[in-house]
C-alpha cells in the first residue's frame, strides 16, 4: 500500500496566507463577528476578464489550488476533489433573489449555472483541461474530510498518484444574515469575540479556500504524511474519548504518541465542550493548538486547521498564537486534529513527520 504525502498547499483566508511565511502577518481580530477575507491578488493567477465572471469562492479556489500545485511542482492531476458545505452561495442567492423579485420572469442563466455545488471543481478542471476524476463533497463540516478520505483511498490503492484536494466556502449576504438570525453566528454588538474566553453561544464566521496536493511520493516540498482520516455524523460528548482512542489504535498509536493536538474551538459555549472534554481529560498533558481565532468558523475551516498542522510538522515549530495550553512538545512527529460542528460532523485527522 502506497503512502499519502502533503506536497503542496495553497491557502486563501481571512489572514494573509499567500506569498508570505507561515503566520508571519497574522492579525487576531476579536472585534468582528464575520472576519473579512484577506483578498489575494487574483490577477496573478486568473485573467481579469475571466475573473469578472467568477464568484469569490470560485476565484479563491482557483488561486489556492494554483499555489498548491505550483509549490508541489505538478501540472497533471489524477483527481480533483473539492469539499464545500454551503457551495456557491453568492450565485445561488443572486438567482433566487432575481427569481422572487421578478416573479420568475426576465432571468438569465449565468448565476444559475454558477450556483451548482461542483462549480469550483468544474472550473479548476476546465482551467487545467483536466479530464480526470472530479468529485465534490457537500456535507457540512466533514465536506473537506470526506474529500481527504476519498483522495487517500485512491492513493492507497494506487488508482492515482497526484491529487488536488481542498475545501472552499464563500460568504454571501443573505446566508450570513440567516445564520445571524439563528444565533449560529454571534450577534454583531457583542465584541470582544475571544474564542477561548467565550461565554456566549454561536461563533465568529469567515470564509476561505485551502487546497493541498497529495501524492504517493515524498519530495523536497513535502510537509507531512497524511496517515488517516475518519468521520462520524454524530457523537455524544461521552463517546469522543473512546472514538479518539480507537482511531489512534487503528494507526498503531496511543495518546502518548501524539505531540500536539489541533482542536476546532470556535467559541460556541454550547459545543466547545466536545474539545474541553478531551483537553481536560485524555489530552491534558498534550500540547494543544487552535486556529479558528485566525480563520473564523466555516464548514471547511478544518482545511485551514490541516494547513496549520502541516506547517507545524514541516517547520517543527508551533507559533505561540496557536497555543491553548502551556505544554510544549520537544518535537512534532505526530499531530492529531479533531473538529466538529454543533455536535455533528466529527472528524479525526492524523498527520506525521516523514
Amino acid at each position: 500500500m502506497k503512502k499519502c504525502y502533503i506536497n503542496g498547499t495553497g491557502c486563501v483566508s481571512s489572514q494573509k496566507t499567500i506569498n508570505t511565511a507561515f503566520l508571519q502577518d497574522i492579525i487576531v481580530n476579536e472585534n468582528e463577528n464575520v472576519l473579512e477575507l484577506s483578498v489575494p491578488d487574483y490577477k496573478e493567477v486568473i485573467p481579469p476578464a475571466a475573473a469578472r465572471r467568477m464568484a469569490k469562492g470560485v476565484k479563491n479556489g482557483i488561486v489556492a489550488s494554483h499555489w498548491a500545485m505550483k509549490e508541489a511542482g505538478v501540472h497533471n492531476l489524477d483527481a480533483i476533489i473539492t469539499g464545500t458545505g454551503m457551495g456557491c452561495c453568492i450565485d445561488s442567492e443572486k438567482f433566487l433573489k432575481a427569481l422572487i423579485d421578478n416573479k420568475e420572469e426576465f432571468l438569465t442563466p449565468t448565476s444559475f449555472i454558477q450556483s451548482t455545488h461542483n462549480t469550483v471543481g468544474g472550473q479548476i478542471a476546465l482551467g487545467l483541461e483536466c479530464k480526470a476524476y472530479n468529485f465534490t463533497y457537500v456535507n457540512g463540516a466533514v465536506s473537506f474530510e470526506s474529500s481527504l478520505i476519498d483522495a487517500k483511498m485512491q492513493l492507497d490503492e494506487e488508482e492515482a498518484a497526484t491529487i488536488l484536494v481542498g475545501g472552499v466556502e464563500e460568504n454571501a449576504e443573505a446566508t450570513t444574515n440567516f445564520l445571524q438570525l439563528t444565533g449560529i453566528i454571534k450577534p454583531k454588538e457583542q465584541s470582544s469575540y475571544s474564542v477561548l474566553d467565550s461565554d456566549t453561544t454561536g461563533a465568529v464566521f469567515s470564509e476561505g479556500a485551502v487546497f493541498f496536493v497529495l501524492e504517493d511520493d515524498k519530495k523536497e516540498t513535502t510537509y507531512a504524511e497524511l496517515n488517516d482520516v475518519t468521520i462520524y455524523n454524530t457523537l455524544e460528548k461521552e463517546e469522543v474519548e473512546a472514538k479518539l482512542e480507537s482511531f489512534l489504535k487503528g494507526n498503531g498509536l496511543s495518546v502518548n504518541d501524539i505531540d500536539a493536538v489541533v482542536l476546532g474551538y470556535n467559541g460556541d459555549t454550547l459545543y466547545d465542550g466536545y474539545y474541553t472534554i478531551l483537553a481536560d481529560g485524555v489530552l491534558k498533558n498534550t500540547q494543544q493548538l487552535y486556529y479558528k481565532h485566525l480563520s473564523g468558523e466555516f464548514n471547511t475551516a478544518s482545511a485551514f486547521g490541516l494547513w496549520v498542522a502541516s506547517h507545524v510538522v514541516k517547520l517543527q515549530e508551533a507559533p505561540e498564537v496557536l497555543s491553548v495550553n502551556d505544554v510544549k512538545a520537544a518535537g512534532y512527529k505526530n499531530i492529531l486534529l479533531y473538529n466538529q460542528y454543533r455536535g455533528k460532523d466529527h472528524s479525526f485527522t492524523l498527520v506525521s513527520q516523514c
Partner: protein
Amino acid sequence: MSRGVAITGMGIISSIGNSVEENFNALIQSKPGITVIENITTVHKNVIKVGEIKKTNGQLAAELGLAADNNYSRTAMLGAIAAKQAVNNAGITDINEFNTGLISATSVGGMDMTERFFYDYAESDEHRRYILSHDAGDVAHKIADQLGLKGLVTTISTACSSAANAIMLGARLIKNGKLDRVIVGGTDALSKFTINGFKTLMILSDTYNTPFDNDRKGLNLGEAAAFLVLESDAVVKQQNKKVLAYLSGYGNANDAYHQTASSENGDGAFLSMEKAFKISGLAPSDIDYINAHGTATPNNDLSEGRAIIRAFGNNVPEFSSTKPFTGHTLAAAAAIEAVYSVLALQNGVVYPNLNFKTPMEEFDIVPQTELKEKEINHVLSNSFGFGGNCSTLLFSKS
C-alpha cells in the same frame, strides 16, 4: 476477477411509484409519470410538464411520523422514505450492527424551503427553523437520523451525476474495507429554483421529453429519491443475504469542455465508460442493455450517442432512456436508474424509450422503443452533470 460489490436492498419514490414494485410495474406497462405541476405555484405551470410525486409535504411528513414543527425539506423527506425502504428491503434490523455508512446525493438540498421563506426569515421567526435545513448535508443528517445510523455520513453534489458518484464511493469504501455496509443514493425535490434555472438555459421541453429523437425539444424535470444497500462479501456470507445484483464497475471523468454543455464527441462520457469497463474487467460486448442518461436535450443525446458509438463500435446493445417516465430527477437520477438497472437484470427486460419517433440524423443508432424480454447479465448506466461531470455504473446479475 471479483464480481463486484453486492446490492442487497433497494428503495425508491418517484413520479411513477412509491415503491420498487410500483416503479417496475409502471416501466413494464409503459405508464409515464409526466404531468402538469401541482405542488408548486409557478408562472411556468402551463408551459412545462414535470415528473412530480403527487404527495404533499404534509402527507410525506405523516408517512414519516414527523412532528408538526419538524424542519425537514421535501428533499430530506423523499430521501428518508426511499432509504428506509432500502434498509427494510435488505432485511436490516440493527442498522449499527456492522460498520455502516450513508452516502447521499442532492443538488438542491433544502432549497424548496429556502425559496418559500427567503424574505420571510427576516420578518418573523415562524419558519426560521428551515434555515438550518438549507444545506445539502442536512439532508443526509436527516436520513441518518431516520435510520438511526451512526458513523460515516457524507454527501456528494456533482449536479446530475451526483447519485452515481455516491454509489461509486460507497462501493469503493466497501472494497477498501472502510465499511461493511453502506446505504447509497440520492434525492432531489422539485423547486422553483431548478425549474427556473433550466428554463433560463432553454432546455425544458414544453411537452413530453423524447430522448434520442431527431426533433427532441429538451427535458422534463422530475423529483425522486432512491437508495441502495451495498454490503461486503463477509456480511453477505455471514448473514446468508440474498444478493439482488452486483455493482461490477464504475468510472468518473470530466469532460473539461464547458460548465454546462457536453463536448461534441462526448470525451468525458467515453472516458467514464472506459474506466467502468476497466474496473469490472468486462468488455463492451458483455453489455446487454444501456440505461442511457438520455435527457432529451439536443446537446446531451448527441454527445452521449457519439460516446456510446465510440465505446461500443458497431455493436451497440439495446439502449433506452427512462427519463420519459420519470423526468430528469437531477441528483437522484442515477440512483433511480440504478434501481431500474437492477430490475432489468432480475426480470430480463429492456425498458422502452417512450415518445421516440424519428432517428437522429447525426448517427444511425436508435433506442429500444418497445418493452423487450431477454436474458440480461450486464447493464451499463450513464449519468452526466454540469461541470463536465460524467459517470458510468455497471451492474451484473447475481
